[in-house]
């Protein structure tokens, strides 16, 4: 399934040079990360293109391929997960395609060399872990009821009455409830982050994707020093059982810590 990038780095002759290249991420040119064989768009070979101290992990994009299918997203993630299991990588966002190997060398690796090396240093030896907590909705709504019994009684009163009659009241009640849930979310986030902060190197807190999300924290941690984080999440999940359900995922490439847009054309100083 995997093979070493080996000597193909810098001498990527395997591809039809006419095909554009899908770009997965940036690694040190000295790294020889294991790469899976399957890539985005049905590519059969993933390889590295080196330039100076940096290398880009790419695969040829077959003619007519328009990445965007589920398999393409999975291939992107699989390539980067395979790399980050053993090596430092700065992941690209899904969907970066460049014209050919020379364009990758010139416009990505040479032009942005300083920025890319800086990004690599920032995540060296580290992986991203995703820590999400979801409310057990009934539990948190019961807390809202306990705090505001009058809201609950009012909601019970209008519950089974036609929307035409009660929509305004229901919306008002729902907004009050949502505001109370949001207050709890703010407090919960702070409390959980206080527990995670001592065992991670960096953290990005994302806004909740829906009202059940209590916390979406993306954290950066040493690949070989993750045990304190594992233990902290395990302890939290035990303490919060019945109220919060945790989803702890990784190791991932450090997407949230390479969230940067490089200018494609200008930047004469780079």
């Amino acid at each position, binding site marked *: 399934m995997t093979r070493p990038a080996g000597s193909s780095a810098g001498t990527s002759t395997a591809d039809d040079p006419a095909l554009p290249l899908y770009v997965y991420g940036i690694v040190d040119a000295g790294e020889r990360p294991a790469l899976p064989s399957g890539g985005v768009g049905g590519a059969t070979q993933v390889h590295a293109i080196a330039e100076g101290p940096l290398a880009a992990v790419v695969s040829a994009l077959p003619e007519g391929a328009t990445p965007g299918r589920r398999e393409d997203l999975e291939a992107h993630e699989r390539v980067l997960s395979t790399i980050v299991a053993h090596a430092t990588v700065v992941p690209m966002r899904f969907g970066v395609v460049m014209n050919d190997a020379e364009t990758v060398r010139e416009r990505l690796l040479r032009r942005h060399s300083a920025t890319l090396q800086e990004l690599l240093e920032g995540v060296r030896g580290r992986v991203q872990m*995703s820590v999400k907590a979801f409310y057990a909705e009934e539990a948190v709504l019961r807390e809202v009821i306990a705090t505001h019994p009058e809201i609950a009684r009012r909601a019970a009163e209008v519950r089974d009455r036609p929307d035409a009659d009660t929509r305004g009241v229901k919306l008002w009640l729902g907004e009050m409830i*949502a505001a109370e849930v949001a207050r709890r979310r703010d407090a919960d986030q702070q409390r959980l982050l206080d527990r995670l902060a001592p065992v991670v190197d960096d953290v990005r807190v994302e806004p909740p994707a829906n009202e059940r999300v209590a916390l979406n924290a993306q954290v950066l941690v040493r690949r070989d020093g993750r045990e304190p984080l594992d233990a902290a999440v395990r302890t939290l999940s035990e303490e919060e059982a019945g109220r919060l359900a945790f989803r*702890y995922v990784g*190791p991932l490439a450090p997407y949230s810590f*390479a969230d940067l*847009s490089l200018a494609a054309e200008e930047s004469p100083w780079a």
Partner: protein
Amino acid sequence: MAISSQSNRYAAGPSPSGLADVLDLILDKGLVIDLYVRVSLIGIEILTIDARIVVASVDTYLRFAEAVGRLQIEDDEKQGLPELMESVTSGGAKSKTSGALEGVKEQIKDVVSSDDDDSSDQEREKEPSRPRRRRRENGE
């Protein structure tokens, strides 16, 4: 709807990533080169937009109101207060509830447009004048 506590199930450590876990990351985070992302590909913008969900919505508010109403009725049943349950679900006369809800009405009527018949606020006036019915088509 509620997530059971049994889903805290990774005593052995984190889960490997599934696509659903990382979709927002690979579409929204990571390094980008301005020009190239958008030139060559079709469909990415749509995927990106679909990956985002609005938190505060009318649907959410209505759902919360319904869920809390259900919980409150359950609680009242447990506490041996069948009157409220009966009055809400039986299609009975409004007078059955008015006593129990009087205090609540007092507390909230300054803030919300009440749907009580004795209220003549703006929201009521916008709706057709007709007898208040308590229909039961929602399946009690």
